[in-house]
C-alpha cells in the first residue's frame, strides 16, 4: 500500500506584527499519500504559500504537527531540515528566486552544490538534462536578466527537478506561462508523477487543477474543500488539441 509522505494535524501559523496577529493558517489537517498529485487552490491571501513553505520545511508552524516521510519536523534540527530540503524536496517559488548575474545552468546546479554525493561532472549533466526537460536547452548560459519571466520560471522548475526529489512543491509554477507552455510543464509534471514523485501544486487556475487527482481549497486559513478528482485530464492530450502555433 501507499504510505503517507505528508501528514499535518491542526497546523496553525500566525504572524505577529506589532500588536496585530495575522492568522494565516487556522488549524488545518490533511495527509498526502506518496504518488499523489495535489493542487491547492484558494483566493489571494488565503494561506497557500504559507502552507507550502511549511510543507517545504522552509518555515515552521506556530503550532500543530507536521510529519514528513514518517519523521516529525519538531524532532529535526536545522541541519537535518536542510538535508531534507536538499535531498527530498524540489521547491518552486512563486517569485522564482533565481540568483542574479548567474547563468541558468549554474542556477540549476545550485542544490547539487550542497550535496556532497554529486561530483561536478554529474552535476553539470543533471543540470543540463533538467534544463532540456523544461525546454531551455539552448539558454543555459543566459543570466536571469537575459531571460523572459516564463523562461525564468522554467529555470526555477528545472532547479526543483535537478536533485531528483521525492516530492515537488510548486507555488504557482505556471503563473507566468502561456497556455501552451503551462500545459507542457503540466505534462512534464504528470510524467514525473507517474514515475512516483509526489506533487503539491498551488494554482489559481481551475483548468490546471483538472490535471491533478486531488484538489484542496483554502479560504482564510481554513480548508473549505478537499476533493478527489475522478476525471484526471491528460496535459499531453490537451496540448495536442491546442491549435497549432504559427511561428
Amino acid at each position, binding site marked *: 500500500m501507499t504510505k503517507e509522505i505528508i501528514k499535518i494535524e491542526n497546523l496553525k501559523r500566525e504572524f505577529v506584527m506589532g500588536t496585530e496577529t495575522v492568522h494565516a493558517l487556522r488549524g488545518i489537517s490533511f495527509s498526502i499519500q506518496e504518488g499523489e498529485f495535489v493542487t491547492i487552490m484558494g483566493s489571494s491571501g488565503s494561506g497557500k504559500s504559507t502552507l507550502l*513553505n511549511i510543507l*517545504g520545511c*522552509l*518555515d515552521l508552524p506556530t503550532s500543530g504537527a507536521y510529519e514528513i516521510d514518517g519523521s516529525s519536523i519538531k524532532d529535526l534540527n*536545522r*541541519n537535518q531540515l*536542510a*538535508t531534507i*530540503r*536538499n*535531498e527530498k524536496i524540489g*521547491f518552486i*517559488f512563486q517569485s522564482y*528566486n533565481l*540568483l542574479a*548575474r*548567474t547563468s541558468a545552468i549554474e542556477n540549476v546546479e*545550485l*542544490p547539487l*552544490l*550542497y*550535496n*556532497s554525493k554529486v*561530483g561536478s561532472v554529474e552535476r553539470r549533466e543533471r543540470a543540463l538534462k533538467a534544463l532540456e526537460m523544461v525546454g531551455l536547452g539552448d539558454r543555459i548560459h543566459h543570466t536571469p536578466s537575459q531571460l523572459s519571466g516564463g523562461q525564468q520560471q522554467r529555470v526555477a522548475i528545472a*532547479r526543483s527537478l535537478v*536533485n531528483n526529489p521525492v516530492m515537488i512543491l510548486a507555488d504557482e509554477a505556471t503563473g507566468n506561462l502561456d497556455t501552451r507552455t503551462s500545459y507542457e510543464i503540466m505534462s512534464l509534471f504528470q510524467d514525473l508523477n507517474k514515475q512516483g514523485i509526489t506533487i503539491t501544486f498551488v494554482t489559481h487556475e481551475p483548468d490546471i487543477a483538472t490535471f491533478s487527482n486531488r484538489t484542496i481549497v483554502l479560504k482564510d486559513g481554513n480548508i473549505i474543500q478537499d476533493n478527489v478528482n475522478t476525471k484526471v485530464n491528460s496535459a499531453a492530450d490537451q496540448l495536442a488539441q491546442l491549435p497549432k502555433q504559427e511561428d
Partner: protein
Amino acid sequence: MRLLNLFKIATKAIVLNKTRTLLTMLGIIIGVASVIAMLAIGEGSKESIRTTISSMGANMITIRPGADTRGGVRQERSAMESLTLQDFEAIKEQASLLTSISPLVDGKGQVISGSNNWPSTIYGVNPDYLAIKVTDLQSGSMFTDAEVQSASKVALIGQTVVENIFTNGEDPVGQMIRFNNIPFKVIGVLEGKGENTFGQDQDDVVIAPYTTVQKRILAIDHINQVIASAVSEDDAPDAVIQVSEILRTQHKLTANEDDDFHVQSMEELISTFSSTTEMLTILLVAVASISLLIGGIGIMNIMYVSVKERTREIGLRMAVGGKGSDILMQFLIEAIMISITGGVLGVLLGLAATVFIENLLHWPTSVALYSIIISFAVCAVTGIFFGWYPARKASSLDPITALRYE
C-alpha cells in the same frame, strides 16, 4: 568536495564584485605593505649596526674606568684614573677566557708632515691591537714588544691620515710625521675600514706604542681603557664576568661597593644600539598595524554590507539545502580570500617599496622572512576575525525570513 564548492561560490561572489573587492583589499594591501617596509627598515638598520660592530671585532671586550651609571651623571672618562697598568697586567695574567689584550690610551692632536696637517686621534696600544680589532696592515709592519718597552717613536696610520698627509701618493712607510710636535716614524699603514654606522671614520687613526703615547703625548701613568678579545663570541659574556671579578679583587672592592669600572662586550654594545632601533621599529610597526586594522574593519564593513545585500541569496541557498555551516563557511572563505589576496598584493607592494627605499633613499633595509609570515598570519586572522561576525549573522538566518527580506 563540499569545501571546494564553497570555494567556487566565494570566488564567484568576489569576481562578480571586482571593483568593490579591490577597494576593500586596498586597506589590507596598504597595511601589509607598510608593515613589511617598516620592518625591513628596522631590520636593515639593526643589521647594519651589527655588521659595523662585528667589523670592529665581535669578540672584543672593552674595560673602562668609572661606574656603570647608565643614565646618571658620568665623569669624563679620561679624567678618571682608576684604571692602571697593574690592572692590565693582572687581567692579562689571570683571565683565562681572553686571547689578546692591550692597554689603550688615546688623545686628540694634529698630525703634521711637511706642509700638510690633519686633526686626528692617536691610540697608544700594544701589538695585540691588530688581533683585537681584526685589522690588517696594508703595508709595513706592526711595532714590536721591544719597541713598546723602549717607548719608541714609531706609528702606524690609517687610510684617512694617509690621504690627507701624504697627498702626493708617496709611500708613507719610512716617512716621518709629527703628532702634536712629537716626531714619529711611520712603520705601517692600516687597511681601510670605512665609516661605521655611527658615522665614525675608522680610518682616521694613528696607532703607536702605549708607552710612547703615555709618556710623550699625554704625560700620564694610568691608562684609559683595556681592550681584549674573548676566546670566542660565545665566551664573551663569561669573559666579562671573569674580568670584573679580577678587577674587583684588584681594586679591593667590598661586596657592597659598586664597580668603579665598566666591562662591556660587543654583544652588549650591539644590544644597546639595537634596543634603540628596536624602539623605533616597534613605533613604525605600530603605526603600520593601525592601517592593517583599518583594512580589517574595511573587510568587516564590506562583508556586513554583502550579507545584507545578499540576504535573499542566503535564503535561497538555505532553501535548496545549504546548511548554516555552509553559509558561514562561504562568507568566511570570501573574507579570508579577500584578506589573503590583499595580503599577497600587500607583500609584493611592501617588497617593491623596500627596493625603492634601498635604491633611492639609500637606507639599509632587510626583509625578514618572519615579517612576511607574520603579515600573512595577521591577514588570515583579520579575515577570520572580521569576517566571522557577518558570516555568523548570515548563517543564523531562517530560510523563509531571508527569502522575504527586502
